[in-house]
């Protein structure tokens, strides 16, 4: 892989704000949030799902946000358990919140507001009557 790191992607303050947003989202939900910022070679979706699988035992209840700034690609992958609490519609809302700020050049701010949106929508599970599902 001919990737030559040439600097930090975020300032310490931005990194801290992202870490704090991840902690808050995880406190609001029982899900594990993870954010990957880097190149997603090949099929971005397949790559993001492979990254989610790399979370190991936490993968079923994990939510992975994969951002490829060079390709302007965003992938949100929810694990098999996580997608019950965070459906694809809520993920779409989170993706919209993120890409709006990404397009304005605010990478860290978009990630933070996306995490906030996902955390808020995951708090109330849609399926309350499990026996009907």
């Amino acid at each position, binding site marked *: 892989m001919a990737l*030559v*790191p*040439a*600097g*930090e*992607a*975020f*300032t310490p*303050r*931005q*990194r801290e704000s*992202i*870490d704090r947003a*991840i902690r808050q989202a995880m406190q609001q939900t029982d899900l*594990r949030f*993870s*954010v*990957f910022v*880097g*190149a997603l070679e090949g099929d971005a*979706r397949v790559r*993001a*799902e*492979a*990254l*989610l*699988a*790399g*979370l190991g035992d936490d*993968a*079923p209840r994990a939510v992975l946000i994969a951002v*490829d*700034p*060079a390709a*302007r*690609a*965003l*992938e*949100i*992958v*929810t*694990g*098999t358990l*996580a*997608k019950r609490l965070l459906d*694809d519609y809520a*993920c*779409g809302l*989170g*993706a*919209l919140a*993120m*890409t*709006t700020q*990404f*397009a304005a*050049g*605010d*990478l*860290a701010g978009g990630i933070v507001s996306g995490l906030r949106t996902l955390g808020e929508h995951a708090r109330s599970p849609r399926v309350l009557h499990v026996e009907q599902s």
Partner: protein
Amino acid sequence: MRNAPRVGALAASLPLSVVLAGTALASGSPDDGPPRSNGLTTVETLGLLIGIPVLVIVVIWLLVYATNRPSGERYRPGLSWWAAPEWFNGPGSVESGSTDEQQETTAELESAPIEGVGGARARW
């Protein structure tokens, strides 16, 4: 350049201020009004009329550019991205670890995708 209008305005105001200062000095005579001390010389007048505004401009310019530096915005849409990949709350850590560890885990985590996942995708 963006400073060209400012420089032009300053250059245009220079002869005007000299003319005004010259007439003010020429009209002064010891007979009218209370006795004055020696009036401002041309250099002092220029210093007052031009030096102080220039000083104010420089101070404001410094304040604006010192407090408004691009400290956080390192990403520009459409430009290339050279930064090393970062994985917040990635594998093997409750919080984000160091970048080197993240790169190692990123390289070795080419595992097969899980079936039955959900999510969303977007472009910007």
